[in-house]
């Protein structure tokens, strides 16, 4: 999801500086950095080659991902049945520094067996460097493709080869509300205008219409980028959306500018005003929904918010509920934006093949789904703990138009500039033109190779 990726990528900046050096270590760097070293097992001590066939008992698979806390627990639960069945063990490390470890590893050859991938962009780079194993022959491809949302299957491909799979996913742009303050479930606003009317009509029930918070440490601003993406997708449509993240539509383009202005109307009606939005961490931004004197009527955030802030302690359905982001231009009805955590394979051994194959099955996916806090890309994983998660999962599988988080697809430099643009805009909306102009300048250089 946005935050995962955003944070890990920027965090990654921490150290992928190593690449500086790496790049000069191999002067002919542009082509493949040492694929020879990439193949050998590295940090798995007791690893002995299985005598033949698929007896992988006693082997170890090393994995690095971004998941920590509850997510890590869920992941361990997910691999437990596989460990029991095969006798192999998983050594998992969660870290926010994923990007640096992998980009270092690509250069130095020190890589885990499997790893979460920071984003589609990095996945492509790793694949082009020859570091990622082609999963086409590893997975049961036919089953995988039939069970998985097609858009997500496509996103895991580079040059027609499957190199990444989505272990979990999230749906963006859900509008959350507190039914005890104002229950939208009877007639959920289907269009942006209906939503605006509903907010105006119920304005007396809360201090302001919207809750919004974009603070997120080094990735501050990203919740606002989700907002603008949601608007672009529904206001200008998927074609503009795609050409925009690909760097072909300019930021100063009227379609994009008008999305910012629509976002501006939300900023203007947000709890705490511009200062508040920039000072409020996204995790707790929705908490005023539940205050004795409610701070807002509605709050826009991805499906994973249910595991954060006050949501975590409340009951789904009774304390909070959601409706999908309404249509803006009815021409693009049924558009949904999603994101997800990619997973790839660096070492091709019987044990890693076996685990990778297992991870994408509905059986494995069901374990995490049951644990809560995550959606599955697998349609057959349906053991969601509550109705809210189930409904969000269905949004992805039933989407007429599915769009992957645009900022995650942009080059990192563009993405960071986008975050900064949001922060600057929230602080002073009158600066929109100069902000968009700066973004155009970044666009001109960020996409250049």
């Amino acid at each position, binding site marked *: 999801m946005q935050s995962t990726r955003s944070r890990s990528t920027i965090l990654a*900046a921490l*150290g992928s500086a190593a690449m500086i*050096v790496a*790049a*000069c270590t191999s002067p*002919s760097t*542009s082509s493949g950095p040492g694929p020879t070293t990439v193949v050998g097992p590295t940090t798995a001590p007791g690893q002995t080659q299985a005598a033949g066939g698929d007896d992988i008992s006693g082997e170890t698979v090393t994995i690095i991902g971004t998941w920590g806390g509850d997510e890590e627990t869920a992941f361990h639960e997910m691999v437990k049945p596989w460990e029991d069945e095969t006798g192999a063990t998983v050594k998992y490390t969660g870290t926010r520094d994923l990007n640096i470890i992998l980009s270092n590893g690509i250069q130095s050859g020190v890589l885990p067996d499997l790893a979460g991938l920071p984003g589609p962009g990095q996945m492509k780079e790793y694949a082009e460097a020859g570091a990622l194993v082609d999963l086409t022959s590893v997975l049961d491809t036919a089953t995988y493709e039939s069970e998985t949302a097609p858009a997500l299957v496509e996103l895991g491909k580079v040059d027609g080869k499957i190199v990444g799979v989505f272990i979990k996913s999230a749906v963006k742009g859900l509008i959350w509300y507190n039914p005890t303050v104002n229950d939208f479930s009877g007639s959920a606003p289907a269009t942006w205008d209906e939503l605006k009317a509903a907010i105006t009509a119920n304005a007396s029930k809360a201090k302001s219409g919207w809750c919004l918070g974009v603070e997120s440490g080094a990735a501050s601003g990203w919740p606002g980028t989700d907002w603008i993406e949601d608007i672009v997708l529904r206001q200008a449509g998927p074609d503009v959306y795609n050409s925009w993240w690909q760097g072909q539509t300019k930021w100063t383009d009227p379609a994009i500018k008008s999305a910012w202005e629509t976002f501006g109307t939300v900023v203007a009606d947000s709890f705490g*005003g511009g200062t508040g939005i920039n000072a409020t961490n996204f995790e707790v931004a929705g908490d005023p929904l539940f205050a004795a004197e409610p*701070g807002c009527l509605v709050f826009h955030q991805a499906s994973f918010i249910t595991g954060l802030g006050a949501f975590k302690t409340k009951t789904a359905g009774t304390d909070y509920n959601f409706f999908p982001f309404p249509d803006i231009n009815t021409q693009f009805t049924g558009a949904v934006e999603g994101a997800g955590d990619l997973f790839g394979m660096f070492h091709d051994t019987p044990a890693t093949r076996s685990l990778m194959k297992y991870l994408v099955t509905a059986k494995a996916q069901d374990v995490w789904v049951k644990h809560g806090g995550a959606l599955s890309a697998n349609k057959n994983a349906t053991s969601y703990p509550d109705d809210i998660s189930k409904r969000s999962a269905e949004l992805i599988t039933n989407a007429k138009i599915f769009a992957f988080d645009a900022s995650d697809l942009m080059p990192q430099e563009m993405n*960071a500039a986008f975050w900064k643009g949001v922060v600057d805009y929230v602080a002073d909306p009158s600066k929109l033109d100069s902000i968009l102009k700066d973004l155009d300048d970044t666009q001109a250089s960020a996409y250049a190779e």
Partner: protein
Amino acid sequence: MDPRLVNAIVVVIGVPATLVGYILLVEQILRALPSRMQPRIRPWFWMLPALAFLGVFLVYPTIQTIIRSFQNRAGNAFIGFDNYAWFFGNAGQISTLVNSLLWVVLLPTLTVGLGLLIAVIVDRVRYESVAKSVIFMPLAISATAAGVIWFFMYLWQPPGEPQIGTLNGALDTVGAGPFDFRATDDFKFNTIMLVIVMAWMWTGFAMVIISAAYKGISRELLEAARVDGAGEWQVFKGIVWPLLMPTMAVITTTMIITALKAFDLIYVMTGGQFDTSVIAFEMYRQVGFNQLGRSAAVAVILLIAIVPVMLFNIRNFRAQEAIR
């Protein structure tokens, strides 16, 4: 027993023993050489272990960084000074330079000034070790945890809401605020707030080292001056200050370099937004953007930035040798 524990014991006892053995051996060998040659060769043997470590872990990678700074994004062609031209031709980067300058001036001033004051003052109270432990404590906290601590110090809530942040809570009781400490960039206010967090962490460090030097000053000397009728201020100015100067120079240099390398805290607290970025942070950002040439150039600019500091140290070095 845990084999790693055995290893660790071997390392903790074996490595120092080897090093001591090495020095004794070297001296044996040197004794066999003509005495005229000894002084020329000896220092190199004494420095060899250090130079080997430095060479492998720092010098070699630095040379590669310098080369990389003259290469393009992909690292397959040399492009002269383009990466440097980019840095100095970019308003955003110039602003980070200004911020870094502010850090370099403020952080050493605060840490060394307060460190000196505290080292000298707490020497006079019985609970010295408690006081010093308190001032020192923040250094035992990682940057991430310090970020969480100061998140709750600087936290801002909309006016009229209960203030949860310590400082805004305090302002609230006197009817002022709330004030956004993190995002207010008028007069570089938020950068100064970040430097204060850093100073909170590092003053203890300056204090410890200055205190070590202060304790080394002969008591008899101070007492003699007092017997001669010198006041406390005169004793400080005439004896303590000059004797502490070399140590203060070391700490100031260290703090200037710490300020130049400051990165973690900015990363954790503002992510470089609200105009709080500094050179070291910019270096990381550019790596994240896969702009390795630019990032290397920024790293080299960091290296060049300490040339004045090094010149100052050379003067110090010469002065110390001259006095003896």
